């Protein structure tokens, strides 16, 4: 039987026994049931509870008083709230574009390296990703010390002045961004590497014959064909940056002068101060924001198709 005949045979509903048909109709529901159950129990339920909490002024003990939109009004009028969103946005700008360019370059280079060395590089690039965050925090604090850190020492060798990496609000964000880049780029490189390896080499060979330079090949062949993978990485990292909490928590505690208080960290502050109602309102606003961002990226991705 040919492929099409097989297909048409299978799609003739009347010829199917109804038991098998029922199994087939119910199968997808059963397959997604575990996920849906967990989703309802541990995502939806807490989220709804957060919504309810956001209209009260609960402080962790005693009764919760209804305060209506008060918490939301406070947040939306609060400089620090918008500041935290701004911080996250600036971090995004510092991290994502650089990471994409860097990762593409590295992935392309690694793709053409000799096989033995490639393995070593792959392992090396993943090392930051698996180093415990608290250790990384310690490392960063020591390496970036203004007067006695290695980074400023290196700068000093080339005659540049000391920079207050973690002590000034100008440089704290780039330093945090650097940490995030250091930690996650290896992972993105590997994702891109995989995308690269499915590109047909014959295209490059043809371009080579046409006399195109390596750079031109990169720009005209690699990048367009990688576009989906790149967008995928961008969406992934955008989510990660706006949700970023652990890094500022462990390294800078949101400082100096709240310059590294990301959206997630600002939210956490409410919780630690016991202001749980405001924390809940903040959570909700953050969820809406992250979802809006993600959806617009998704739309962008589909629009370019």
């Amino acid at each position, binding site marked *: 039987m040919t492929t099409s005949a097989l297909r048409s045979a299978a799609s003739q509903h009347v010829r199917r026994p109804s038991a098998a048909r029922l199994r087939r109709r119910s199968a997808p529901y059963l397959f997604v049931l575990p996920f849906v159950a967990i989703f309802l129990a541990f995502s939806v339920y807490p989220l709804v509870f957060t919504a309810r909490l956001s209209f009260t002024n609960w402080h*962790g003990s005693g009764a919760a008083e209804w305060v209506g939109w008060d918490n939301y009004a406070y947040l939306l009028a609060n400089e620090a709230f918008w500041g935290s969103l701004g911080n996250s946005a600036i971090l995004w700008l510092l991290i994502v574009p650089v990471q994409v360019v860097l990762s593409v370059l590295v992935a392309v280079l690694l793709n053409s390296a000799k096989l033995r060395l490639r393995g070593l590089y792959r392992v090396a690039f993943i090392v930051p990703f698996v180093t415990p965050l608290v250790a990384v925090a310690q490392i960063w604090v020591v390496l970036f010390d203004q007067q006695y850190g290695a980074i400023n020492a290196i700068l000093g060798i080339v005659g540049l002045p000391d920079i207050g990496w973690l002590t000034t609000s100008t440089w704290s964000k780039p330093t945090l961004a650097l940490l995030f880049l250091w930690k996650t780029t290896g992972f993105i490189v590997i994702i891109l590497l995989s995308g690269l390896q499915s590109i047909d080499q014959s295209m490059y060979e043809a371009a080579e014959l046409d006399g195109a330079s390596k750079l031109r090949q990169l720009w005209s062949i690699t990048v367009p064909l990688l576009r989906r993978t790149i967008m995928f990485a961008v969406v992934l990292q955008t989510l990660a940056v706006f949700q970023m909490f652990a890094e500022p928590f462990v390294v800078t505690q949101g400082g100096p002068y709240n310059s590294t208080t990301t959206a997630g960290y600002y939210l956490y502050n409410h919780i630690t101060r016991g202001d749980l109602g405001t924390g809940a309102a903040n959570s909700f606003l953050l969820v809406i924001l992250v979802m809006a961002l993600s959806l617009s990226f998704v739309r962008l991705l589909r629009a370019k198709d």
Partner: protein
Amino acid sequence: MNRIMSRRGVRLTAAGAVAVSALALAACGPDIGTGETTSDRLQAPTAAQPEGEITIWDRSGDLYEVFDAVIDDFNEKYPKITVHHEAVDINSKLQNTLITGTDVPDGVFLDDALVSGYADHLWDLSDVLSPYIDDIAPQKIDATTVDGGIYGVPYDLNPGLLFYNATVLEAAGIDATTVETYDDLLAAARAYQVAVPSAKPIHLEQSAFLGQLQLEMYASQLGTSIGGADGELRLDSPEYEQILTFLDTVQSEGLGTRAEYLSPTDIAELENGNQVFYPWAIWFDFAPQQLLPDTSGDWRAMELPAWTDGGVRSGAMGGSSFVLPKDGENSELAWLFYEFLMYDDSGYSAVWGTNDVYPTGLNTSIPAYLPAADPAKALFQPVDALGGQDLWKVATDAGSQIPGGTPIPSWWTGAVDYLGSDLQRMLDGELSPDEVISSASDGIQTNLIDRQ
């Protein structure tokens, strides 16, 4: 191909979400507590040999080892009480544990700054502490008092002292012991800078949290703190004006080394003779003993300068207490443990005296219990790194001067974002003392006090 999400999918999701939320908002969620607001006073157990198990939380580290070693001594007096001693990241865990009310420990080591924030969850210890209360440093009682109830068993008193590098100061012809006021200190610093031009003699703290803590030390000397007994803000006062002006002067005249406490920079400047005056709590003495090998033995401690002629020469900086959560199963037994630790001679001698962890004794704090903090009966030994100085005497004399009237409001830690931050800005040269006071007061009032 619907690879990601179709428009219809978005609409359906949104509709679904709204429906579910409407339903659930109307329904009940997990219980968020009843309206229990009466303060409960803990009563001591009456049995001669009380029996039971208690769980005690302490921060991990050397202090954990010290307390652990005392458990055996405790069991000699109360053999039927089993102590489960756990090292816990208290600052991260305590709030969640108290909120969920599950696996709540019977006793917890807690920074004084955090106690009032948790008062709703803790036992009022006024009754059990009443036999001892007159003998406890008043600052410690105030630190853990909320609405007339006392919510912590005071552990250590951390008197502020002026640490100075005697050797290099002498070499520059300056006798630090003649410093009696902060004006004297400025004069000494200027003189030292003339002798050693690269020097920036006085330490200026760069961490917002520690900077605020140190500010409160200065304020404690003057019998004030940022929050009063009724929770009102006391920043806008001549006392804070004077303190902030002093700090601003140190900064503007280039007399200060700006660094985070014991960061690599801080340590280096202490070792090379550029930073010679460190007004700080007694626990700075850790540095000359462990972290400053080059200048170990050169350092000395003395009382802080006073803000006015003949004024008080010490204030409290930091300090911790033991709190007893109401949800703990055997809190009254935990009280016995802390009573032993703090008010029984064998208890406090074991903590501060020579032991396996600290062969020369625990010298980074002194007991808050005044009979234990007797200047004539040292618990820890003279400190080699301070040239063999009898630090005990200096600290206990200083500690006895610290006035009361300095409660710690529940929003103290939250204030770091405002006051701590603004103080750092002032030390950056961005704000004036008056601006710090108005900006911080504004921020604290709007964001913390009004939202209690």
